[in-house]
């Protein structure tokens, strides 16, 4: 049942993403007409989208790749007309993850909290993003007596780019393509130990920006 819901959610998010991307030029024209910097003062951005997570570890000769929905919240201020600084919290959840092919028994949750810098090369709304901070990961598998959980904390890193499409003076729809790296240490689960796990999430997302 969970699988069906996740697939439906993915399809919905992909549909929204496609719609926004197809209508992007018109929205960009509108933003240009507004003659206003992309963001000013205090701003906040909330979004979600499909992600593709790649988990690598020390000594592993291959990587595990899976799809997972993800979301983020970004809040910040403006340093200058082109440079913004903020804090971003990103999270992804895969209820049917596995550390080997065909295994879908693990629930994988990864999150990062990073200080991010957004750089707008022009006033058109296109921006680059980069940030560093902390990360957390939780991997849960059902066991014979309840569930077994492995938690880890570590370093988080994010970079990517996006576009603000203004829909009013105070609101924009923002598309993002970003990578989120979460290095969370060792994952120890019944019968397996994965050393120095580094999960990289590639995310395409759509969000609302209040600016």
């Amino acid at each position: 049942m969970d699988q069906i819901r996740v697939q439906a959610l993915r399809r919905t998010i992909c549909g929204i993403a496609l719609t926004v991307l197809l209508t992007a030029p018109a929205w960009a024209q509108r933003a240009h007409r507004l003659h206003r910097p992309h963001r000013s003062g205090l701003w906040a951005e909330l979004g979600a989208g499909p992600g593709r997570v790649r988990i690598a570890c020390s000594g592993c000769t291959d990587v595990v790749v899976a799809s997972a929905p993800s979301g983020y919240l970004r809040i910040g201020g403006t340093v200058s007309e082109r440079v913004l600084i903020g804090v971003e919290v990103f999270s992804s959840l895969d209820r049917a993850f596995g550390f080997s092919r065909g295994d879908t028994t693990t629930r994988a949750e990864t999150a990062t909290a990073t200080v991010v810098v957004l750089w707008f090369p022009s006033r058109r709304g296109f921006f680059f993003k980069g940030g560093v901070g902390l990360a957390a990961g939780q991997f849960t598998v059902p066991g014979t007596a309840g569930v077994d959980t492995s938690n880890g904390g570590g370093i988080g890193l994010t970079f990517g780019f996006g576009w603000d499409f203004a829909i009013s003076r105070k609101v924009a729809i923002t598309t993002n393509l970003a990578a989120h790296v979460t290095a969370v240490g060792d994952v120890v689960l019944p019968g397996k130990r994965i050393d120095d796990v580094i999960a990289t999430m590639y995310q395409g997302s759509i969000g609302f920006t209040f600016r």
Partner: protein
Amino acid sequence: MTAPLLAVLMMVQLDSAPSPRSPRSPRTVMAIGQVALINTFVNRVDALVFKHDWARSGTRVWGEHLRLGWEWDEDAFTTNMFAHPYHGSLYFNAARSNGVDFFQAVPYAIMGSWTWEYFGEKYRPSLNDWYMTSFGGITLGEVFHRISATIRDNRATGRGRTLREIAALPMDPIGSLNRLVRGEWRARGVNPPEHDPGSYVFRIGGGARFAKGLMADSGVGRMGAMLVDLLYGDPFATEYRSPFDVFGVRLMLSSNGGFSSLRASGRIYGTNLNNPARRARHVLAVNTRYDFFKNRAQSVGGQSVEIGINSRWPIGSRGYAFRTSIFGDGILLGAIDASGTGLGTRTYDFGPGVGARWEFGFDRHGARFLRVFGQLEYIHAVSGASADHIVDFSGIEANIPIGRGFGIAAHSTVFHRTSRYSTAPKDERNYPEARLLLTWTKSGFKP
């Protein structure tokens, strides 16, 4: 090695040679080209001249790296914690020496490091290398850029001018090569703003170092030591103008182990917390910090961002004052030696952390007579042992002037660490150390 680099640098000189520091827009294309050139040059020299297998990367390796992504590497502590930051400083200063400002130069270090990790080596991209090269490169890069600009003098002539240019070369080789190619080693002109720090204190000392645990596990070892301290700018004399307009560097060399410590901390933002006209001053500072401590007893280092308050309470009217500092920091990525580390041949852990430091000092125009300090850092290992490390470093340093800039310095420090491993017993160690040095201080003060 310099000749081919020079040749290619000359080829990518898209602009005509200007007079030194003439006002102009940044040479962005040139800076990007030089970052790419650094990577290509280092890779090709290592592959073709030194026959290093790790440098034999190609499209198949690049594809593997893009598919497999990051991992942690097993390189030696000095390689990861000093050589990589130094390498990062080359990228950063490729941008700075082409007129790019501090913040705009940051992506050059980040992207230079990223492209090297993915395309410059046969090994998988290393996340710790990327952190150390990028963030260490930014901190060390700006320190090297400013010290080099201070050493160079565009108004000087003759042999003295050449010696200055040569002296700056090891710290800022890319900047020096750019200047050489553009004819700026000889051309006379105005100096850049970084040339004059306003206030500064330079202190160099040589003498003996007595330390427990450095020569053997028991007893006290005695060795020669050289200490260099540089305070560039003064947070109270200089209003915040640009990143690293105020920074401090300490370098210690030891006859036992050579290069034993390097610490650099530079202000990237600052503001007054009270009226600058008041006698007692309080200023807020945000610093980036680079730490490297390595000897036979302990190895610890990392890249940090710290925020805190510097205060100054003047005594009388001849420049004497008490100073205090209190800072909290976040370690972006730290490294510490760990007996229970579990990654191949590596003997230290990597991880993020938090910490705090405080300092009380008595000085005249920034030149310390007395300094009492403490620092506490926590590192949570994410690569290596499953461990949490606490490092406590404190000490007292006195410098007694004996005339003509010379002085006698006595230092006493204690390095204490506690490591809690999930699969090994707790490890607790204490390393007291004393130093007796003959020092020479040169300082300048501009209120």
